[in-house]
């Protein structure tokens, strides 16, 4: 069985947040990290390999600058066997559809049985990549899986919808994005982190995949960012570090605000 996991490198959520005023793009310099939501997809694949599909081969797939290789290694350490990294300057500035086109081209080549994604990207909070990729690949798609079971060439997924929980079934090959509650990702042990670099890494250009550069990247983006403005804030926030008196300070605040009598 061949499993692919689409991962994304995102700016560290702890770093200062800003958009570059010149390019209107999210500034990706500084510390970057593997999208935390993707770790759940990797853990889900590892559990499939430990369980119903011991022969599973897990491929980490990403689109991003060459420097994203650190996040690829982080993903490999957690459980990938090999990686496919599409690093091409012409891919920079891709919007959702552009990124999906590149991922789909890379995934098509690999003939995967199961394509997994995290529930959303921590930077843009977008949660539609699975739907975009599945449609481009003309594959069945199930998003926001709270559990996955694999048996007899099909996945059975429990997922939350507005009216409760659906259980759905799809034959492989298919695309599944997983909820952050599906598992508790394990931290890779040191030898796995050291070993990640030695796993097979394939770095590809758009041309290698036969992707027309004019359909992706900033040039091919279907959406434009024309300007930025400030949303209305909530107003002042008081943030205190607990020194043992936090609960007392909170109660004083609530009394002053007349939220409690």
């Amino acid at each position: 069985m061949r499993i692919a996991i689409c991962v994304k490198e995102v700016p560290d959520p702890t770093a200062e947040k800003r958009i570059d005023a010149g390019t209107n793009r999210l500034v990706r310099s500084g510390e970057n990290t593997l999208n935390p939501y993707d770790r759940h997809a990797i853990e889900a694949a590892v559990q499939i390999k430990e369980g119903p599909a011991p022969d599973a081969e897990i491929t980490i797939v990403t689109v991003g600058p060459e420097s994203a290789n650190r996040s690829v290694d982080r993903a490999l350490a957690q459980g990938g066997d090999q990686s496919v990294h599409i690093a091409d300057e012409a891919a920079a500035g891709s919007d959702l559809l552009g990124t999906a086109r590149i991922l789909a081209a890379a995934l098509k080549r690999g003939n995967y049985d199961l394509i997994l994604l995290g529930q959303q990207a921590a930077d843009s909070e977008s949660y539609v990549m699975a739907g975009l990729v599945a449609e481009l690949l003309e594959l069945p798609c199930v998003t926001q899986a709270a559990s996955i079971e694999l048996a007899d060439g099909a996945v059975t997924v429990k997922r939350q919808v507005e009216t409760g929980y659906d259980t759905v079934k799809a034959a492989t090959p298919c695309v599944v994005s997983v909820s952050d509650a599906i598992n508790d990702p394990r931290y890779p042990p040191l030898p796995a982190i050291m070993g990640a670099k030695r796993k097979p890494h394939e770095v590809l250009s758009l041309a290698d995949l036969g992707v027309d550069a004019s359909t992706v990247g900033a040039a091919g983006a279907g959406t434009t960012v024309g300007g930025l403005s400030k949303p209305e804030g909530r107003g002042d926030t008081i943030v205190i570090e607990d020194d043992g008196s936090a609960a007392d300070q909170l109660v004083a605040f609530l009394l002053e605000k007349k939220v409690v009598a």
Partner: protein
Amino acid sequence: MAGIAVLCEVQGGEIAKGSLGVLEEAARLGAALGEPVEAIVCGSGLDDAAMGALGGFGASKVRVADDAALASGIAQPVVDACASAQESGQYRYWLAGASIMSADAMAGLAARLGAGIVIDAVELHAEGGALVTRRSGLGDSVLAHCGFTTPVGVVVTRSNAFAATEGNGGSAPVERFSPTFKAYSQAVQLVGHEDAEDSGPDIGAAEVLVAGGRGLGDAAGFAAIEECASAFGGAVAATRAVVDAGWYPYSAQVGQTGKTVTPKLYIACGISGAIQHKVGMQGSGTIVAINKDKNAPIFDYADFGIVGDLNTIVPKLTELIKARG
């Protein structure tokens, strides 16, 4: 390309409230752009009169795909239906609310049409004869003005961005159409459904909500939250992460897929503050956050934040409130 199509979702036999708000906003946008607005409804066993009532929310026409393949609420057959509607309608824009189904369907449609897609839009503006959305980014610290370069643009709005009115009681002509379904779109089968039970306390009515997230560590962690909530005379709320994990019932979930609440006081304990949670509680009077990570996004929209361990702070808070009792 001309006109605006709004995917109006049927939930529990009725058009979803979120869809009605988007439809009304589309009507305002359509008037500014000089584009007609049509409602697209996908389902099975739909009633013409009920569908026609969408005219009262701004649709000039209601196009209905009524097919057993659309009964399950699975998104991919809806992609096929929308694509069929697009073939005959040649719409310039597609709009939908942020339900699980609608967002998935719009993603599929955008990919099928090669259309740019904006999700989480909070405002829709007519600028220079075109739709320019506002999409908040970077933890809601900026609003990006997003437009389209593709002939068709697809927009998924943020939950609760557009509140629906009662409508004006008008109606619109209903036209039925038959979608062409693709084999892969029908491959996902619904094999079971558990309805969310609404047996717990009505969190929508509570004046104080004490909410628990994954920071509680496990299901047993909710005991302290329940005690705190009862000290305040309030109820308990939860994030999707803990509901999905089975720690707390779905009826207590606040957020995009769960409930929208506006208590006087919302105390978020061990909750990171993802946008999908925020949209359900940002209308609360006073927001308090207790989180051990000082960079947690929840602090960006709390009135009073405590960086610390909920395991020591929450019981202490409970004692202090009880003592005032």
